């Protein structure tokens, strides 16, 4: 008899109950591939992008690929939403605007996101990423997500 694999919704529930978002992150192949993890302090997550050769975009500087930095910010925003909302559905990105502020060197990168507006259907989130100095962000993003109200979920 084979066990039914846990659904993403199960992973969200488990992560919330354990207070460890990494239980959810571990279920996302792309987050594992990039080397993303996160820790929670109160209601605020700090995401971490491990430094690795495979995420480099410009070897001459060197710098992390802009697409990876954007993906990291989008992921951080989604994780913060999952940490904030009651819903177990994964928010869907509608639009994201990424500003590249400084070169992201080949170092550990961190990110935080703030839910600026939580509507019944749409959430607006701002995220920023930094390396050595939190006061000198390397990149920022503003994104809108489609969310599912908890009362509309099957088995909600």
């Amino acid at each position, binding site marked *: 008899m084979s066990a039914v694999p846990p659904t*993403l919704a199960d992973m969200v529930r488990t992560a919330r109950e354990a207070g460890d978002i990494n239980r959810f992150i571990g279920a996302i192949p792309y987050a594992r591939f990039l080397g993303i993890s996160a820790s929670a302090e109160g209601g605020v997550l700090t995401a971490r992008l491990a430094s690795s050769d495979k995420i480099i975009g410009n070897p001459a500087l060197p710098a992390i690929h802009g697409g990876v930095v954007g993906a990291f910010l989008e992921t951080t925003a989604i994780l913060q939403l999952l940490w904030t909302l009651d819903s177990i559905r994964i928010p869907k990105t509608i639009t994201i605007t990424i500003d590249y502020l400084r070169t992201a060197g080949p170092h550990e990168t961190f990110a935080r996101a703030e839910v600026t507006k939580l509507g019944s259907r749409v959430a607006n989130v701002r995220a920023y990423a930094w390396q050595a100095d939190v006061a000198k962000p390397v990149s920022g993003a503003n994104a809108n997500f489609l969310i599912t109200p908890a009362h509309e979920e099957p088995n909600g």
Partner: protein
Amino acid sequence: MTTTKRPTIAEELIRQYVGIIPHVAELGMETMHAARGMAIMKLPYQERLVGNPETGVIHGGAVTTLIDTVCGLAVITAPDEPSRVATLDLRIDYLRPATPLRDLYARAEVYKLTRHVAFLRAEAYEDDPRDLVAAATGTFMFVRRNAARKGLSKP
């Protein structure tokens, strides 16, 4: 009889583009077309790019990476051989989820080039270029290769 023409620096850069960017080489992206401010690239479907393991749909971040990369390639093929390209900003509209197991393509076009800034539009799709997965606009800063050579890179 054919005459062999030495490739320009830009032609050489376009040929090597995929290989010199470690993350792009890692993902196995391919250049399908690159000329005069327009480029098309392919991102092969792969399990490790999946954002939702229940559906097999790739993560939006992988789409962002493809679009950023193809925009950079379009900029360096623009007139006057821009070099030292850096993304200033990128806005991506996700129009529908990418189809699992399908390779993704993105096309970028420079629609305006000023002294230091390139303005681009880009689109991502699978088989049908009219059935878009994502639409994007981007602005890129660059230094013109000719200006850099003459020491005219300052504003």
